[in-house]
């Protein structure tokens, strides 16, 4: 009996948490296609557009993430990862603002030269924009 109660509560927690805490991954095109509402938390993946990185004083940075079809501006306060480069893959997690920009609290960049976030690579492959650096 006690065992069933514990398992029941655990299962309930898992289901509740899965509904409320997961974050979807989108490319900029999907954000507009799927009509994602402002205030939604999401992961945005794509390439950092060449020449789009601007740093203001303080620790604020802006850059544009593109999937070659659509582009979105990301605002971020903090330090960019060591492997962050213009023209290369990035994943930013944060909340979609009313202005259509992403206010990111986490920016992840690929881990080494050969590697790009799998999510981004899949999307680029699906769109035929993959530039063939498969290791």
């Amino acid at each position, binding site marked *: 009996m*006690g*065992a069933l109660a*514990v*398992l029941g*509560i*655990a299962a309930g*927690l*898992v289901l*509740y*948490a*899965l509904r*409320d*805490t*997961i*974050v*979807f*991954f989108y490319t900029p095109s999907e954000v507009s296609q799927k009509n994602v509402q402002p205030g939604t938390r999401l*992961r945005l993946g794509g390439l950092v557009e060449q020449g789009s990185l601007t*740093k*203001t*004083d*303080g*620790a604020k940075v802006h850059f544009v993430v593109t999937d070659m079809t659509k582009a979105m501006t990301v605002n971020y*306060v*903090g*330090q*960019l990862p*060591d*492997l962050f480069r213009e023209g290369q893959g990035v994943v930013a*997690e944060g909340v979609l603002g009313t202005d259509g920009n992403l206010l990111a609290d986490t920016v992840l960049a690929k*881990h*080494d*030269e050969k590697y790009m*976030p*799998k*999510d981004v690579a*899949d999307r680029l492959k699906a769109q035929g924009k993959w530039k063939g650096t*498969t*290791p």
Partner: protein
Amino acid sequence: MEGNNPVIAEIGHFALVLALAVAAFQCIVPLVGAHRNHREMIASAVPAALVQLVFIYVAFAALMHAYVTSDFSVANVFENSHSAKPLLYKISGVWGNHEGSMLLWVFILAIFGAAVAMFGNNLPPRLRARVLGVQGSIGFAFLLFIVTTSNPFARLNPPPIEGNGLNPLLQDPALAFHPPFLYAGYVGLSVAFSFAIAALLDGKVDAAWARWVRPWTLAAWMFLTIGISMGSWWAYYELGWGGWWFWDPVENASFMPWLVATALLHSAIVVEKRNALKIWTVLLSILAFSLSLLGTFLVRSGVLTSVHAFAVDPQRGIFILAILIFFIGGGLALFAWRAPTLKSGGFFAPISREGGLVLNNLFLCAACAAVLIGTLYPLALETLTGDKISVGPPYFNLTFGPIMLPLLLLVPVGALLSWKRADLVAALQRLWVAAAMVLGIGLLVFIFNQRGPWLAPLGIMLGAWLVLGSIVDLAKRISLFRSPLATSFSRLRGLPRSMLGMTLAHAGVGITIMGIVCISLWKVEHILAMKPGEKAEVGQYTVEFLSETPVTQSNYTGTGGHFRITSGSVEVATVISEKRNFKPTGNTTEVGLLQTLFGDVYVVMGDKTATGARVVRMYYNPFVTLIWLGALVMFLGGALSLTDRRYRVGAPRRNTAAVGVPAE
């Protein structure tokens, strides 16, 4: 290159193939022999396990030699090493890649197999033959995987002059030793698995069986504890995010076997002492190693995106998946078929030591299931619907935390219950001193933390409850402060080591909990742009940016930012945060870290801003060191328990329990 002997790599490759053949023998002959009760076939298991170790040792040493001498005619060395690397990272480069890490895996497997062969003289010969046979089958599967898909000795002709280098994030002392410990843990659980399969084949599980399984599980659990905490420690100071655990799938992959191994440690006690929970313990043994295999699959197949995913090669993924299905599926099928033949005994009331341990198992397995679902759900959803999601810390905090909470509250109580039927009220009465002390601590935290988070006093109380609940009971058993110190000390020495180990391990959990609570609730984070000469406050410390200086080393160049840390008017330390550019590729940022027992000052120098200032991120992490200190205490508790008389190999059976000490 000079000093290279290209023949050595060929010897290594040859030894690997021979090891595969020996593994096939070790798998088939002893198992058939045990089935037919054929004496010579049964006896062949021991030499087979030893020869297996010799061949894999030769292969491993050959690869190590190729790395140390920078033999770039070996493709694996070329891809993952560089002649300018320090010796330590040439050595750790051996397992810093897919092929080499799999070789390390089978090497450790062979060490465990040989250890069972050598120290297993008091095992029934048939049981030992079966255990070694199952070990042989695991070795065969993984050696076949290495030889056919992941050969570490593939050659390049002509040999390149210079190698590609090791991922600079991996060039770190803690990470150099993280994989060997973690693998020792993963693979150590294979022994429990082999014992479970052998017991199912034998149709017999008794106290002697549990006495055999427990030390191996304990050793594996100790290695896992150290391996996981090293990984977490590395993530803390190397990744530069100020965090220590990210619920990354790869972290989960090592944490799930730990949770089940912890459950197994506890249930094996019940089998040993009370001859109950046998079927459940056998199942846990199978599950613990299954989760190790799953972890290996998740990390090695490249289905996950992380720094650990060396290989993105579907062929390898499918091969490991096949191994996974064979061993997990086969193990569970055998369990379903044979488990009903195991006779269970030893009935107990719900409120008893056994009952407490069942509850422990229930919570640990539920917590493990929650982690498993959170780890696999994104994979399943992507396969089924194509939707990509990430399950992050909020999920795990919401599920894992509440499941573990009641377990942690019950730990000191459960440890006091007696076997068979216990008096809950009496156990609680023994804890009143600890409870009063914990309330006092909670009150103190509440007073000093009036503006802080309301969870803080409760979290600290939970940790203190685990520490004090364990220690106060121990103090009572040895009548500390009530009798002369010498008497107490001799009583302490008379207590069974396993009991002391348990006390220490439970206290270690409490210490880790307190560290987690402190950093989660009281962390101070500050991000700003700084120029040399500027100061900033973090916690009770002042951090001054002094200067930037260039840095040149054999394997990297970079810039070091010097920061002076003062507390009030006292200068405490100067720390350096470096941005490094590695040869031949890769950048890292090194954290400037001041560690004290009371808290860490953590400074990360970032990029230049438009006006030439540096983005600086700093944290004050109070009591964060307790997290790893607690893990170390758990490890020591395990080690102490491992030296308990009843597990000692070949120890004479003595029945002279120390006078005046109640039986455990």
